[in-house]
């Protein structure tokens, strides 16, 4: 009996010490447990239906992976080039537009006015049901669009790096680079608005996209093929980035540069080449993210990437800058927060919840969940 209680006290003391050391983490952990208990309670008393919660989880997963995929590119450039790239969101938009220009031109050739197709209907709105693009009916063209988006964004990032960031690189001033990226962001976003106009427009024919319903509890969750494509491609791309960084020579050089730039320089790593590789990989992921997000949403506007940017920053910071898994985890945290929080708070405050989570992480765990700058 006595030995038992001494054991308890010992255990309690160890626990108390740990909690005191990581008070922030403990508070977060405790609030998550309380929220989960409350969720179970709500499900039992029937305040929330299980299929609604399941829908939130699925939507959160889709949004989270999209943000995570977009975040990997940002995380790479952040850790290796040492600045917060505020133009990243608009690079996502540019990727989306370049991919969809290709898809529209291929699908609509002969049936619609080519000049208008190349502008995704900027001159005169295009009836998307008549055009009939969807993952189910035109998968090959969608794949082609994805490749164009990737190549287009790589070229764009290399161009921007050549004329904006490279001339500033020797100063090593992260705030000057950040401000320059804000300039790039403004020019890029409104350049797209100048060419493609400002209206939001449809891309895919929702009626043609295959949709499956998965029974949950008394109802069901709708899952469509666009979402599935996004989830699968995102996971595949993330795994390949991980393998690349972990096992290829270039990947190792990139990680070395993220950890310690000077050390990388004196060990003979060709830093300028590594920087270019960073932009190429980051650009590819960014373009893919832009195309997949718009594919899943079925609409595009000139500032969708910019609106996403703060969420992506949030994801990257939560996960830890420089970590691929961190970006994915951060993305999932953001995505799930934005949907699951709807159980407790009204929809128009979901964004407030997301940014609050980001600020809290920055304050209590600024190195992120995955400790950052390891690039793994």
């Amino acid at each position, binding site marked *: 009996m006595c030995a038992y209680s001494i054991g308890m006290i010992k255990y309690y003391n160890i626990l108390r010490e740990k909690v005191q050391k990581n008070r922030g983490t403990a508070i977060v952990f405790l609030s998550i447990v309380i929220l989960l208990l409350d969720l179970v309670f709500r499900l039992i008393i029937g305040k929330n239906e299980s299929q609604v919660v399941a829908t939130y989880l699925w939507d959160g997963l889709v949004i989270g992976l999209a943000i995570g995929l977009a975040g990997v590119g940002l995380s790479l450039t952040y850790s290796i080039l040492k600045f917060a790239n505020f133009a990243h969101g608009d690079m996502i938009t540019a990727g989306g537009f370049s991919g969809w220009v290709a898809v529209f031109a291929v699908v609509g050739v002969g049936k619609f006015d080519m000049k208008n197709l190349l502008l995704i209907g900027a001159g005169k709105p295009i009836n998307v049901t008549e055009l009939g693009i969807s993952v189910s009916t035109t998968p090959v063209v969608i794949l082609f669009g994805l490749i164009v988006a990737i190549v287009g964004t790589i070229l764009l990032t290399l161009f921007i790096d050549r004329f904006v960031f490279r001339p500033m690189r020797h100063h090593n001033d992260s*705030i000057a680079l950040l*401000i320059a990226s*804000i300039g790039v962001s*403004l020019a890029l976003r409104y*350049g797209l608005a100048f060419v493609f106009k400002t209206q939001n427009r449809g891309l895919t024919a929702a009626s043609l996209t295959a949709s499956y319903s998965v029974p949950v509890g008394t109802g069901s969750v709708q899952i469509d093929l666009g979402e599935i494509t996004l989830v699968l491609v995102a996971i595949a791309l993330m795994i390949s980035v991980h393998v690349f960084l972990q096992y290829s020579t270039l990947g190792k050089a990139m990680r070395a540069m993220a950890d310690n730039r000077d050390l990388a320089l004196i060990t003979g790593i060709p830093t300028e080449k590594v920087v270019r590789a960073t932009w190429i990989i980051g650009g590819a992921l960014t373009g893919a993210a832009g195309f997949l997000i718009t594919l899943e949403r079925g609409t595009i506007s000139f500032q969708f990437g910019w609106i996403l940017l703060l969420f992506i920053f949030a994801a990257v910071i939560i996960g830890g800058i420089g970590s691929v898994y961190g970006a994915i985890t951060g993305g999932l945290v953001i995505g799930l927060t934005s949907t699951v929080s709807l159980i407790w708070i*009204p929809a*128009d405050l979901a964004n407030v919840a997301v940014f609050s989570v980001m*600020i809290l992480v*920055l*304050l209590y765990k600024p190195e992120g969940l995955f400790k950052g700058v390891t690039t793994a």
Partner: protein
Amino acid sequence: MKFNIEMLLKNDVRIVVSTFVGISFLFIIVAMVLGLDFNGTINTIQRIMFLSAVYAMVVLALNLQWGYAGIFNIGVAGFMLSGVYTMAIITGDPNGLIPGLGLPLPIGIIGGVLVSGLLGLLISIPTLKLKADYLAIVTIGFAEIIRYTANAITFKTFSIAGIEMGTGAGRGIHLPMNPIRGIYYIEPSNPGLGKTIVGEYIFGFFEIIQVQSSVVVSWTYAIVLIFIVGLFYVVIYRIGNSPFGRVLKAIREDELVANALGKNTDIYKMKVFAIGCGLMGLAGILWQGSYGYTNPTTFQPILTFYIFIALIIGGSGSNTGSVIGGVVFASLLFEGPNFVRRVILHVFKFDKAPNSIIEAMIPISSLDFEPFIAYSLANISSLRVVFLGLVLVYIIQNRPDGLLGDRKELAASIDISRRPVTETREGKEA
């Protein structure tokens, strides 16, 4: 080498006044080309002056944070919003569609400044130790939280301790009548009820030179704002040259050293955050207050970037540069393109602009640039921001100190970097 503050001040006043005069002169020419009458010309200059004064105020407030203390706050729009909305809620009609507290305007303005300052203080406490780029992300995130909250239907109307109030959500919120109107009208909300004696005389005088009474009222407000810019300048100049300001500059140059010298840099940063954000709130009130109405869309992050562009043009660290930057940004970069469009359309009288950029580009192959120019002019609002972005990139690459940035105020009270050779121990050196 003595540092003559009086001379400097005279010189600075001359720079600011000549910029104002030069820009007014430019817009008079523009108005003449456009064929505006005297009333229209006067009104154009008033609009430019008003916007320039607003930007000069916010840029001065930002200069206190970034230029003096090196705090990279990119949540300016959020702190302006909080000031304006607090003022609106305090002064709103308790029986209106969106109820308010119904208190007088001065209390509203003081409340707005205090709330913005307190929010600045609130966000400063946990962010003191963050790196500059993290601070940037936190402040822009915080500003977006403020904006999303003002935009949320949940707070369209709410009640605290049984008192109804609200933000009006996406529809926006009404702001009280500009008290300047009270100088001219007996009943400011209804000019039909007659004019005051001042109104009779001044309107009478301006009627002779054919200036409408509404333009006179706006001009009065613009002059008041220019006066307030002067106050902002003096306040920030005084802060900057006080012992407090010297510590701020030391923090900007090297926080570690300032700390090592026994200054509690955290307290200084908190104070400068609170003062700067309070002044941003005040600037927001004075800007939106004259419109009688405001909404959350006005305070998107791009507003913060505009203010940063203005500060960087002028040169961060220099108060005179801040004023010049605000004036140049508001008049030439922000309003300028619209006037360029109006002048070109007035002089050349183009056909209707083509519907899409491809249709506008095709005629270029036969050296017909007219459709492309017409398309560009029709979409000048987008093109303007592209231009602003490029200007920002150009300045940060080539003139990171801005127009007057070489005059960045020094942390030391004497310029030790330019000590004359005669004063060195070895005497004159080669």
